[in-house]
């Protein structure tokens, strides 16, 4: 039986932030639609609108050309729409079978859970991926003990256990290995034949071109293109995803060629962690080097291992000395500083004062008993140089706005006069004015001879500010962009692993 779902002119705001301003999507049974867009373009919001997780602000959802309203995820499920979530929704302490059938457990006549029926049905589902499991996966296994890829498979099985007519796969392949992806694609082929519709969200171009029949491209919350996959190639898709003009103007550090003559500040050889698979590069003193790529390709691991926070293998040399970093202190002693990606959880002590936050990494310099007067003076100075707006040093950091709180994080490291700054998406959740201040500051720091390694999820920042950008993909540096090749188009293409042509 042919069914269809259409989303028309969907608008969704989160507070003052527009996530979707004009989202459109058409899905029919028997086809795979790829939903494509850069970071923050609204893909996830779109999928949440059609599976009822968020309620749309304006626009219309049509099921078989009749208007519908999904007030909850349950309502969407009842209409036969299932979602495989990117953030896993399984309960680690429960077994595979319990997770899959949670709230829909088959019952016996006595009102108790029919365990043998559950087991049998689960075995049937598990057999779909039989042969691709790394462990002997059984219905009674506890989910928490499974590797990430098998959790993802359970998530997929859970979604199809509803027997939906439409399945939304939100980055479902990101943690699967190639055999599992193959098997999933075979299954998707079967599902198409049995009158199911699939919405496929992925960042991997080759997967999109293999499996999708149609595409729909989002850019800044707007659907900017849709059509048949056979009428388009990867270059054209990337072009659709890119915005023409950028909101910010950047002032790059002048005369960037002479930096190659400067000594090498940081050299990394074959760095490996759980999500990095052999990364090598070097950075000269005074360079502003960007780290690009989609979220979760190993950028975080790269910065954390350089700062000694997570175990790694490989060689890290700072100013020519190979060192083993076991703790952030080791890195701090060599003049490194890290502005972490999650300000609240990793960068600040929210209920403590601004003073204590600013001096936290530096207390040891203030002797015993601590010279609080000197600390206050230094903190005042650091605050003033960053134009930090505060009621007083004794106020808790929780009283500051996002931008000012981020200045405290930056300030606490600048007070130590670091030689190499590692920045993990420092402008996330920061207002426009403060962003502009940050850009000026980073350029100034580089011209003063400081070296900066800078990950950003905003492509404009990387293109506008950096001397070079290393693009990470699946835990390796897939491409390095610099000079004329450093364009937004090349950056996005490289992020998606589309082709290596942008490389120098």
């Amino acid at each position, binding site marked *: 039986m042919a069914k269809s779902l259409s989303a028309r002119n969907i608008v969704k705001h989160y507070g003052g932030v527009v996530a979707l301003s004009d989202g459109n999507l058409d899905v029919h049974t028997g086809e795979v639609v790829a939903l494509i867009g850069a970071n923050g373009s609204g893909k996830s919001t779109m999928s949440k609108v059609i599976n009822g997780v968020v309620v749309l602000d304006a626009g219309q959802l049509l099921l078989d050309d009749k208007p519908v309203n999904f007030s909850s995820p349950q309502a969407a499920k009842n209409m036969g729409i299932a979602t495989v979530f990117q953030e896993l929704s399984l309960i680690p302490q429960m077994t595979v079978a319990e997770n899959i059938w949670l709230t829909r457990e088959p019952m016996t006549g006595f009102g108790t859970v029919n365990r043998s029926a559950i087991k049998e049905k689960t075995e049937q589902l598990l057999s779909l991926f039989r042969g691709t499991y790394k462990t002997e996966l059984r219905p009674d296994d506890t989910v928490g003990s499974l590797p990430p890829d098998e959790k993802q498979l359970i998530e997929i099985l859970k979604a199809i256990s509803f027997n939906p007519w439409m399945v939304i796969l939100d980055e479902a392949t990101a943690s699967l290995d190639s055999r599992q992806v193959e098997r999933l694609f075979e299954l998707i082929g079967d599902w198409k034949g049995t009158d199911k519709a699939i919405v496929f969200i992925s960042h991997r171009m080759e997967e999109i071109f293999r499996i999708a029949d149609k595409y729909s491209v989002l850019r800044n919350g707007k659907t900017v293109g849709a059509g048949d996959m056979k009428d388009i190639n990867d270059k054209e898709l990337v072009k659709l995803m890119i915005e023409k003009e950028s909101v910010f103007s950047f002032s790059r550090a002048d005369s960037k060629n002479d930096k190659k003559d400067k000594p090498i500040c940081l050299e990394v050889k074959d760095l490996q962690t759980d999500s990095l698979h052999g990364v090598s590069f070097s950075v000269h003193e005074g360079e502003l080097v960007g780290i690009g790529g989609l979220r979760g390709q190993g950028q975080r691991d790269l910065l954390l291992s350089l*700062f000694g*926070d997570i175990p790694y293998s490989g060689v890290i040399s700072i100013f020519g000395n190979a060192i083993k970093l076991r*703790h*952030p*202190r080791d890195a*701090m002693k060599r003049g490194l500083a*890290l502005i*972490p990606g999650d300000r609240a*959880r*990793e*960068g*600040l*002590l*929210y*209920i*403590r004062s601004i003073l*204590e936050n600013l*001096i*936290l*990494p530096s*207390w*040891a310099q*203030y002797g*015993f*008993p*601590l010279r*609080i007067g000197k600390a206050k003076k230094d903190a005042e100075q650091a605050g003033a140089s960053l134009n930090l707006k505060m009621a007083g040093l004794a106020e*808790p950091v*929780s009283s500051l706005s996002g931008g000012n709180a981020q200045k405290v994080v930056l300030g*606490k490291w600048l007070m130590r006069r670091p030689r190499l700054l590692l920045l993990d998406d420092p402008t996330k959740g920061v207002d426009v004015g403060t962003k502009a201040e940050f850009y000026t500051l980073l350029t100034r720091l580089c011209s003063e001879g400081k070296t900066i390694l800078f990950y950003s999820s905003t492509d404009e920042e990387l293109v506008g500010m950096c001397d070079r950008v290393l693009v990470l993909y699946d835990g390796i540096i897939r491409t390095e962009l610099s000079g004329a090749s450093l364009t937004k188009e090349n950056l996005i293409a490289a992020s998606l692993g589309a082709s290596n042509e942008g490389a120098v």
Partner: protein
Amino acid sequence: MKRFSIPPPVAALILAIVLFLLSGFLPNSYGSDVKVALSQATNILRLSVFLGVIAAGQTLVIISGFEGIDLSAGSIVTLTAILTYVMVKGENNMVLLAIFVSLVVGAFIGLLNGAGITFLKISPFVMTLGMSGVVTGAIIILNHGNVSGKVAPIMTRLIARPISPRIPIPGAIVIWLIFGVLMWLLLERTTFGKNLFAIGVNRVTAKLSGVNVTGMNLATYSLAGLLAGFGGFLLVGNTGVVLIQLGQPFLFPSIAAVAVGGTLLSGGKGSYWGSMAGAIVLTLITSLLTTMQMPDSVRRMVLGGTLLILISIYGRQQALRQ
């Protein structure tokens, strides 16, 4: 609504003073005799010292966060009190050695606590509760239930007696004041103190700011054990006798004193001044109820109720926290 904020230590102290003044109206209290009133106040302060010192270690582990608590404090107090009693045997020249042993034994037990919590990832509650059992058992084995020993005269002189015949203030109170200043220095004027608050608020931030969280955890529990050990030494100097249950009655009041003093039980915020004030409030209420000849059951109910009321008031003031 927002700006009614007296710091908890001050609030607790005011409460103590008001309660004490009100107690003058009780039938068998000091009435209008200022001299009796003063000596009664001094006595209550003297009794607060032991709870206050035992609450010092508790303050540190509670500030260190991560569900920090030390349930072994009571048994450490008993152990070091007995050790002191047995070692000194009435000899003044053994006192320094006894202090030293008390501190080292306390610190060692604390270190074991810290190691279990840090390396074996046992929750502080379970780890220190278990340790309390182990230490209590060890005390029973070591003594077979009877102990022979004696407190040295110099201990009684310094701890239990007034500092001079003219000034009727017991030595214990002076020791406590000095102790309080040292605790303030430790918490507010050392890198250790600053890092302690940091790990209490957020261990990820602390580590990424260069704080050695593992080392801090070990040091904090060791220090808590050491302070409990010191508490045992002081306590036996006051009582002059030991019993198997000497320290245990101080355990829950030591946690309550920290809470009454406004230290966040979730960690990261607090002061030793607060715990001192808390110790005074709790000791005062207990002794008032005893003066009123209330049965033990009523004393417990009043104490528990007071705690709940105080902490719920602080809870309202902490609305800024999130």
